[in-house]
């Protein structure tokens, strides 16, 4: 039962991710990727990691998808310019070959590694435990993450908003 559920989650996630990577229309790709991110968060719920599942929904489905959609809409030339120009055949073939080679190595390693046979009951982490760990053991890492997020946000705003050189010379 749980295995079937896991396979179903994996199939939905993988199919929407693969279709998103194949499509020509950028908006459709982003919407399908949102579906795949939701699938990953459903997997987190399935594995008993509710905190991470809600973080995934908030960060990816809520924030990153909006940022990506804004970037898509800000970087098109005309109303009809939604389709991505096709890439060369050899590029696609070599990319699929490289990804297939990586997949073969990964699957070889995963399937041939002996795993402990008994299925453990699984740890349970409630939000109180996670908060204690975050504020106790990992307090320094939490501060560093806060710094990274602040610097990255400020840097993103500065990079996207400054128009210095191109304003004087006009768009190239």
């Amino acid at each position: 039962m749980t295995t079937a559920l896991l396979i179903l989650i994996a199939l939905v996630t993988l199919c929407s991710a693969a279709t998103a990577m194949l499509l020509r229309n950028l908006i459709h790709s982003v919407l399908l990727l949102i579906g795949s991110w939701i699938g990953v968060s459903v997997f987190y719920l399935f594995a008993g990691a509710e905190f991470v599942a809600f973080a995934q929904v908030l960060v990816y489905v809520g924030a990153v998808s909006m940022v990506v959609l804004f970037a898509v809409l800000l970087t098109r030339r005309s109303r009809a310019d939604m389709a991505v120009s096709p890439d060369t055949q050899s590029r696609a073939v070599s990319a699929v070959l490289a990804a297939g080679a990586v997949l073969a190595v990964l699957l070889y390693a995963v399937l041939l590694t002996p795993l402990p046979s008994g299925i453990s009951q699984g740890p349970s982490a409630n939000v109180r435990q996670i908060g204690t760990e975050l504020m106790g053991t990992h307090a320094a890492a939490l501060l560093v993450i806060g710094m990274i997020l602040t610097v990255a946000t400020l840097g993103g705003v500065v990079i996207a908003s400054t128009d210095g050189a191109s304003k004087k010379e006009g768009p190239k």
Partner: protein
Amino acid sequence: MIHHPLELCLVFSSLLFCIGLAGALSRSNSILVLLGIELMLNAANLNFVAFWRYGPSPAPATGIVFVAFSVAVAAAEAAVGLALVISIYRRQRSIRLQEAVRLKG
């Protein structure tokens, strides 16, 4: 063949990683390349949760905390990456990677 849920999770995340890798390598639109990288990051997070849940010696909440940090870094990466895409589009009027050959001006 696959009898352990951890194995199934690892196969799932390997497939997700390779879909992201193929997407990032094959497309020349920089937004799609960034999305492929996001997929690969998601696959890595999936592994963290899988090992936390089904791994041999589960720690109380370490896996969860690590995924939370990883998601935060991924969000920062997406914000900076898309700001760079917008900046490149402003200067070159294109977000194809082949045409973004200069970083300055």
